[in-house]
């Protein structure tokens, strides 16, 4: 055997273990704590992707057990299962996966994840990984113990058997790792799972900690997110290497057909224009070399092109983010949650979109930095917060305008709030291969900023409303409790009857007072609006109450003057010191109905507390 071949063999022998050693950080195994999180994360990401692709609502069980300085990690899903012959390839081979070259919004984009966890397990404990999988009712479950042959980068099966598994279908991975289990920290398995549950409200996760403590993250949405579509690459933003590979692989014989067929948003006319500019008309794409490919890329820049289609993205959705946040912050009983989903946008030919949410108040700590939850394609980002574009945008916004504290109007704000940002894209631009921070790309920055500002405005409007209510509450306390007591006590002391204070009350208040309340009753949201006339004359005006949708309104009383799609309209006629109550009920599925928005017309707004001036028509 020639020496060179001998060497090449050796090179390959050391390559995989060394590759892992060199890239520990990139792969997410650089500390004992992080290694444990990464193992869980890779397995859970895989499980979620598998379930969703098969259209199954994910039910995932994660268990971590402690054995001295080793931990056993088990992750089990109810997905479609994996056929027996494929199991070794999925778990026992680095860089094996179906998604490596596809342009599609998905959790894993590298196909390196789960096998890296298997390798880490084997390198730190010497133990094989156990996979159990079943592909459906009537099929047997296969249990396979395997290791990775680091010399050949091939799986080696240690033991395989058929076992009985109650489950209809699913996959379970069990591996032993050296690691460290931590609690009450942002970077922990618990936080990773909690964050995952927030942005995957269609998932249920059961988590058993090493001490036996069981935590359940319940499903709140019984509907799978829409499956993201695969799209062809766009000419803007394609890399030279990818282009060369595509040229080589294509079956098209003409450059123009190649461009028109294998890229998105390229018409045949556009393709001709490009080929002409590049001077490569009638060229066979298979014959395109490095220099020609460079020319091609230059010519891509010179033509105007349609943006890529953006229907390939699968956002979580405003309401679902709200549901996820609400469920996971329930024990903090926050007073307000606002969310926003932007329209898809494009950077360098790559579609992306931004979603945000803000949780405010309740038992969230008042004088600490706000909590930031970052997500890329529904995967929580736990590390490298400082280097991420999301953090940068948050620091750039002047949060003082929206009711949070921030020294000098810059930096991470302080206050009882959680800020969530999700970036979805067919190709998330990470700052490095470790995929923990999103790169600083202007288009993404702009979208995050606009979205956060939208959420923040809603929060601010809530806070102003609250402040106003507080003032009104004080006045109400004054006239309903304190003033009558002053009257009673002074009468007692002078030994005379208690005087009537009605006219003094209207002098002090001199307004029409509107208060409202939303309660949940028998699966309905009930909104009650109470109007009290504290003016000394009768008042006639129109009251408008905003509703999410006419269809969702179950009951209105008294009979409204008019009901439009988004608003209920009442004619109010009220005598001095009279009280009138208005009420409507909504089907409970209206989670986006946080607060009443009340408006009035036909009366001077300065005489009314608790409703704004109606700016709409009619």
């Amino acid at each position, binding site marked *: 055997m020639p020496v060179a071949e001998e060497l090449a063999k050796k090179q390959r022998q050391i390559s995989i273990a060394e590759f892992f050693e060199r890239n520990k950080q990139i792969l997410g195994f650089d500390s004992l704590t992080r290694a444990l999180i990464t193992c869980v994360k890779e397995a859970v990401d895989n499980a979620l992707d598998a379930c969703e692709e098969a259209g199954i609502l994910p039910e995932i069980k994660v268990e971590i057990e402690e054995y001295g300085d080793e931990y056993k990690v088990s992750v089990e899903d109810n997905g479609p299962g994996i056929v027996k012959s494929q199991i070794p390839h999925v778990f026992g081979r680095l860089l094996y996966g179906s998604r490596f070259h596809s342009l599609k919004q998905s959790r894993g984009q590298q196909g390196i994840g789960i096998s890296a966890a298997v390798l880490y397990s084997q390198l730190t404990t010497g133990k094989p990984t156990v996979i159990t999988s079943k592909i459906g009712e009537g099929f047997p479950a296969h249990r396979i113990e395997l290791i990775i042959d680091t010399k050949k980068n091939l799986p080696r099966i240690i033991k395989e058997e058929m076992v009985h598994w109650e489950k209809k279908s699913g996959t379970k991975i069990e591996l032993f790792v050296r690691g460290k289990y931590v609690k009450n920290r942002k970077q922990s398995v618990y936080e990773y799972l909690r964050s995952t549950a927030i942005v995957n409200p269609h998932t249920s996760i059961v988590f058993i900690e090493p001490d036996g403590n069981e935590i359940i993250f319940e499903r709140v949405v019984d509907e799978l997110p829409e499956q993201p579509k695969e799209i062809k690459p766009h000419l803007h933003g394609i890399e030279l290497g990818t282009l060369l590979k595509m040229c080589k692989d294509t079956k098209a014989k003409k450059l123009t057909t190649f461009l028109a067929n294998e890229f998105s948003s390229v018409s045949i006319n556009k393709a001709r224009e490009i080929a002409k500019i590049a001077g490569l008309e009638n060229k066979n794409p298979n014959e395109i070399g490095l220099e020609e490919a460079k020319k091609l890329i230059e010519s891509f820049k010179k033509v105007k092109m349609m943006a890529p289609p953006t229907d390939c993205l699968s956002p979580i959705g405003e309401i679902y983010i709200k549901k996820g946040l609400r469920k996971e912050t329930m024990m903090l009983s926050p007073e307000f949650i606002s969310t926003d989903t932007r329209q898809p946008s494009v950077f360098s030919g790559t579609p992306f979109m931004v979603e945000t949410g803000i949780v405010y108040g309740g038992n969230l700590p008042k004088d600490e930095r706000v909590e930031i939850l970052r997500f890329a394609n529904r995967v929580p980002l736990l590390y490298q917060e400082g280097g991420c574009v999301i953090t940068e945008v948050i620091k750039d916004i002047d949060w003082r305008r929206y009711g949070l504290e921030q020294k000098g109007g810059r930096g991470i704000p302080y206050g009882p709030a959680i800020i969530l940002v999700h970036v979805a894209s067919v190709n998330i631009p990470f700052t490095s291969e470790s995929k923990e921070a999103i790169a600083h790309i202007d288009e993404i920055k702009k979208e995050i900023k606009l979205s956060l500002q939208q959420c923040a405005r809603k929060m601010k409007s809530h806070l102003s409303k609250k402040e106003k209510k507080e003032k009104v509450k004080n006045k109400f*306390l004054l006239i309903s409790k*304190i003033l009558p007591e*002053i009257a009673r*006590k*002074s009468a007692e*002391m*002078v030994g005379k009857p208690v005087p009537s204070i009605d006219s*003094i009350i209207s*002098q*002090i208040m001199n307004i029409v007072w509107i208060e409202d309340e939303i309660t949940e009753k028998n699966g309905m949201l009930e909104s009650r609006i109470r109007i009290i006339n504290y003016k000394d004359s009768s008042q006639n005006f129109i009251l408008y109450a905003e509703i999410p949708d006419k269809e969702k309104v179950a009951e209105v009383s008294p009979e409204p003057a008019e009901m439009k799609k988004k608003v209920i309209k009442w004619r109010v006629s009220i005598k001095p010191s009279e009280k009138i109550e208005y009420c409507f009920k909504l089907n409970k599925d209206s989670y986006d109905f946080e607060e009443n928005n009340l408006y009035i017309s036909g009366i001077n707004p300065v005489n009314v507390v608790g409703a704004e001036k109606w700016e709409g028509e009619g």
Partner: protein
Amino acid sequence: MSTLNESALNELKKIAEKIYKDLENSRVPSLELPARTKTNIIFDERYRVWKYGSQFIKRSATSLPSAYMLLRTMYMIDFIRQMIEQNKTSTLRELYYISEGWKNAKFESQDESDKLAEDLEIMTKKLREDFKLRPEEDGARVIGNIVIEEITRGGEKRRIHCQDDVGDSGYSIPYNVEKEKLRFVETSADKVIAVETGGMFDRLVENRFDEKSNSILVHLKGQPARSTRRFIKRLNEELNLPVIVFTDGDPWSYRIYASVAYGAIKTAHISEYLATPSAQFLGVTPSDILNYELPSDELNKEDISALKSELKDPRFQDEFWINEIKLQLEIKKKAEQQALAKYGLDYVTDVYLPEKMVEMGYEV
């Protein structure tokens, strides 16, 4: 019920009547009282003390905090009425705790209830002692050649010689020092020296300075209690004894002097009753710090802003004070009375005080 208490009660009832009348006539109930701030004190030529000026604040039930104050006023008046009728007294602290049972009218802190008791004094032109309210603080100490006659708890008259009949800690001033409780029988002393700190008071006592200088020594205990100031005022008025004030050399001590001599801002409604306008400041002055080369500390931020505020305080608008305060701001130093110990324990009584008193025109 004493006539004093009865007339106080009548005045208090007038407040309740005012509120009732407002309500009866459909007016938003309110009370007026002088603004108790530095900008609202004026010099009363007749009594030569600082009193409240003509700025008034109005407590009207249109705002929640004011309405609370009106309600508390009603409750406090009613409570005082009960005490007067049952011939009981309570401390200001007890009053605060009693208010716990007043539901909406309860106080958030004792500061609030103390202040309202003072407000009632201002509105009725009576003393809180007439309302059967007494302060928590025990009176300060006195040593000197004076005989005092006090009515004891048992109702007997007892004569006390404030050198022979008392221990080293001296005679303790009771909270009520009015004539019906306390009378000066005789004295051979020719002046009163009021001393800020306990350490210096004990030093003067140990060095028998009361005998050597023929003085009555009074311990102020920091910012002096009303009874201490009233006691000094009576010594000055009834026995014609000049009063000398001896304190630390810092802005807070100058305020102690000012409250003895001119009246405090908080109690400006009874200044003519508490203040001794002829009281003189002996030291420690900023000039003393330089002249006697006293050990000193740097002024801190609060000291400096207190001095600056004193430059604007109407009570300090004379040449002596303006010069001394400006000097202190320049040297940025302050000194304690006890810094005089630098030259030995007897220095203060053998050298410093005699020298300073001669400077002030006393024979030593």
